[in-house]
């Protein structure tokens, strides 16, 4: 009887040992640790000039030598369909509201209303590298710079919040010299406004 009990104990011990050995080969349980991040995000609603190799100017667009025999004169260093722009503005917002880009021209004395025109096309979302999803107010083409602040672009769903890199709008300008006096300097101050007011 003692022998049988001893044998039984030894068999049980061996079984336990084999089970322990088997568990050594089982994948260990995952171990995890965690922490919490807390941040404060400041609001941003801004407009600023942008320039690169294809956007030539910002605060001054020069027309140094306007040829009066032409009906469309481009700024210094520009020519028709040259793939460049005169100015670029970047609008950045994270406030979540739709925003509007407006343009207004303040003309010096003696400039006919249609003498200075601008060209504006669909802007770019600099975060995606694609055209922005907002709406142009007018068809693409040359238009006189309005004397009243006028909406030219309404942000879309994607670029209403367009951080960190914003939405880039580019502009080209041209002068129709007909009606302009020779040897006289004319000025149009162009104001770009970013606003949440339509």
């Amino acid at each position, binding site marked *: 009887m003692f022998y049988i009990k001893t044998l039984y104990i030894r068999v049980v011990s061996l079984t336990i040992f084999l089970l322990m050995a088997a568990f050594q080969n089982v994948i*260990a349980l*995952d*171990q995890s*640790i965690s*922490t919490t991040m807390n*941040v*404060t995000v400041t609001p*941003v609603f801004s407009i600023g000039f942008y320039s690169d190799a294809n956007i030539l100017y910002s605060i001054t667009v020069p027309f140094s030598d306007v040829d009066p025999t032409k009906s469309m004169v481009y700024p210094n260093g520009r020519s028709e369909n040259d793939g460049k722009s005169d100015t670029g503005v970047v609008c950045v917002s994270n406030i*979540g509201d739709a925003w509007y880009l407006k343009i207004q021209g303040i003309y010096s004395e003696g400039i006919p209303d249609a003498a200075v025109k601008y060209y504006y096309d669909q802007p770019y979302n600099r975060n995606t590298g694609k055209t922005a999803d907002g709406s142009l107010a007018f068809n693409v083409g040359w238009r006189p710079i309005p004397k009243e602040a006028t909406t030219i672009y309404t942000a879309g769903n994607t670029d209403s919040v367009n951080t960190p890199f914003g939405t880039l709008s580019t502009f080209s300008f041209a002068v129709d010299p007909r009606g302009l006096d020779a040897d006289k300097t004319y000025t149009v101050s162009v104001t770009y406004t970013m606003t949440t007011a339509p």
Partner: protein
Amino acid sequence: MRKILLIGITAIFALSLAIANVYAGTPQTIQTTVNATVGSTFSIAFETNGTYVSYPGASGLTAAVDPASDLNYLDNHSTLKPDIGIIVKSNENIQWFLKTATAGGSLAGKLLYYLPQPTVDGTVTNGTLTNPVPGEGNPWPKIPNGTIYTSGLDKINTPNGTYFGMSIGVTGSGLAPGSAACNLIFTLTQTP
């Protein structure tokens, strides 16, 4: 008498020789057996020494985020040491993986990381970083929901473990103004 004396002397001499052989001849050995049971180690922990990291225990991670920036550092970020440290220990002799995940809150998916090659006892490991270390001025990769490191020879790295020194950033992309938060989870696993 003389013979007895001679025999006695001889016997004594022979006995002396025998004793001498015992001391100067055949090696005598004894032995014992050492039995050791080695415990299994498979653990992960944050570095708690503030000398080595800006956030001991990875506690109190905060940042003031400029949404116009695609990389915002943590408030106590230093160029002299990583933000947090993670220590992984294993003697299981099985390849292991360090994984990350972000969960909860509007900050999930907005966290970036900078992780150089980890070390064991000060020597860089030969394990594999999922994302190579970004060069100066290059963007940091996003903290993924997945593997960031696969062990090499450091699948056994006891007693001191494999040491990861990581810095964390936040992209301002798409974040609304105000507060944002999320949980950042590190998992040590043998599952790829």
